[in-house]
C-alpha cells in the first residue's frame, strides 16, 4: 500500500500571486526514505506541512495509507506523524524527558510506559538517559537538542516522519553521525520518511529516492543512481554538476 499519495496538489498563500506548490502528484511506498532537494523558496516546507495539515491545499488530494486526510481531524492526523524542524522547537520550559514524552502524554500513556519509552528513545538517538533526562533544552548543545527533537518525533513510533532540514544547523561531523543514526533508525522501524535538505550530498546519501523541486514543481523523482546517471532537465543537471564541481575542488587540493 502507498504510504503517501499526492494527486494534483496545489497551494497558494493568501496575498501572493503565485502558487507555492503547483499541481504536484507523486506516490511514496511504505518504508521509503525520500529526500526533498531544491533551492530556497521552491516549496519544500509547504509541501511537507500539507502532509500533517499545518497547511491545507487549495486543490488536490492527499491520501495517507488509503485515507484522504481532508476527512480526518487535523489533530488526529498530526499525532500519527512525527515532525522535526531545523530550529528543534523544543519546549524551553520542559525537561528533556517531558519534551520527549509530549505525544505519549497527549495520548495518555501511563507514566511507567512513558518513562521506559523515553529511556529507549534517548539510547536510540545516542543520549545518556541518566545524564540528560532532567536537563532543560538550553543546557544542551545544538546537536544534542536536535537528537532530542528526533527522539520526540519518534516517541509513538509514527508510521510517517516529516523532517524539515533537521540537521541544517549542525556541524559537519555531528551531521554525518546523525545521518548514520537516522539510516539505522529507518532500517529498524521501516518508517516512511520525508526528509527536506539543502545539502545535495545528504540528499543522495540518505534517500532511497530523491525528489528534486524547482519553483513549486517536482522536476525529478527517482533513485540517486538514476538521477546522477541521467539528470534530465536543466535544473537537475546544474544541481548534479555543482556537486561534482565541489568534489573536484576537494580532489585538486588534496593531490
Amino acid at each position, binding site marked *: 500500500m502507498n504510504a503517501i499519495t499526492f494527486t494534483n496538489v496545489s497551494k497558494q498563500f493568501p496575498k501572493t500571486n503565485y502558487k507555492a506548490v503547483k499541481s504536484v502528484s507523486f506516490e511514496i511506498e511504505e518504508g521509503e526514505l525520500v529526500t526533498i532537494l531544491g533551492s530556497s523558496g521552491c516549496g519544500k516546507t509547504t509541501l511537507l*506541512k500539507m502532509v*500533517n495539515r*499545518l497547511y491545507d491545499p487549495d486543490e488536490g488530494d492527499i491520501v495517507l495509507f488509503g485515507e484522504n486526510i481532508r476527512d480526518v481531524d487535523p*489533530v*488526529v*492526523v*498530526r*499525532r500519527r506523524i512525527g*515532525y522535526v*524542524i531545523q*530550529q*528543534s*522547537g*523544543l*519546549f*524551553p*520550559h*520542559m525537561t528533556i524527558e517531558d519534551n520527549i514524552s*509530549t*505525544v505519549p502524554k*497527549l495520548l495518555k500513556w501511563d507514566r511507567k510506559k512513558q518513562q521506559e519509552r523515553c529511556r529507549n528513545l534517548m539510547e536510540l538517538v545516542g543520549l545518556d538517559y541518566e545524564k540528560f533526562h532532567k536537563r*532543560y533544552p*538550553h543546557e544542551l548543545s545544538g546537536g544534542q537538542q536536535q537528537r532530542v*527533537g528526533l527522539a*520526540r*518525533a519518534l516517541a509513538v513510533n509514527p508510521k510517517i516522519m516529516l523532517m524539515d532540514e533537521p540537521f541544517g544547523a549542525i556541524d559537519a561531523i555531528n551531521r554525518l553521525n546523525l545521518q548514520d543514526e537516522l539510516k539505522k533508525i529507518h532500517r529498524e522501524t521501516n518508517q516512511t520518511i520525508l526528509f527536506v535538505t539543502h545539502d545535495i550530498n545528504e540528499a543522495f546519501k540518505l534517500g532511497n529516492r530523491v525528489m528534486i523541486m524547482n519553483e513549486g514543481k517536482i522536476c525529478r523523482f527517482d533513485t540517486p543512481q538514476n538521477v546522477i546517471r541521467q539528470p534530465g532537465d536543466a535544473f537537475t543537471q546544474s544541481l548534479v554538476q555543482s556537486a561534482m564541481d565541489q568534489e573536484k575542488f576537494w580532489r585538486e587540493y588534496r593531490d
Partner: protein
Amino acid sequence: MNGKWMEVITEYFRTNKDLYLEMVSTHIKISLIALLIATVIGIGGALLVSGNERAQKILSAVFQTFRVVPSLAVLILLIPIMGTGIMPALFALTLLAVPPIFMNTISGLTSASPFTIETAVGMGMTKRGTFWKVKWPLARPMILAGVKTAAIEIVASATLAAKIGAGGLGEIIFTGLGLYRMDLILIGAVSVATLSLMTGLILDGADKLLVPWK
C-alpha cells in the same frame, strides 16, 4: 549624635511598639489586597483579550496613559468620589498595579518562539493544549516580573494612602512631617524601604520556584 539618634529611636519603639506593628500590618494588608485584586484583573483581562489583537492594542494604550498619572493625584481626585479611608486607597493602588501586570501578561503570552508553537501544533496539541501547556507557562516569567513591578509600586504608594486616612506606615512619615520630627520620618522611610526590598526578594523567590528552567 549617633548615640542620641539611637536613643530617640529606641524610645519610640519602646513606647509605640503596638502602634508601629499595627501600621506595618495595615500597610502589608492594604498592599496585599490591592496586589491580589490587580493580579486577578490584570491576568484575567489579558486572558480575556488574548485572542483579540485590536482589544489588546486599545487596552494597552489606555493603561499606558494611566501609568503617567501620579498616584498621589489619583488618591486626591478620588476623595470627592469615594471619600476617605481604606476603600479609595485600595481602589487607587489597584488602578496603579493593573497596567504592569496586564501588559506583561500580554507580551508574555506572545513570547514563545514561533517554532515552538509550530512544533506544538505539528505534534497534535489542540489550540487549548498549546495555550495552557506552552504559551501560558512560557509567559509566567514575564507575568511574574509584572507582578513584582506592581508590588513594589504598591508598597511605595501605599505610603501616600495614609494621606486619605487609610493608615499604614505613611502615618508615621506624615506625622513626622507635621511635627518636624526627623526621627519619625526616618523610621517611616526606612520601614517602607525595607518592606519594598522584602517584597522584591519574596517575588524573586517565587520566580525561582515557578520558573525552574531559567
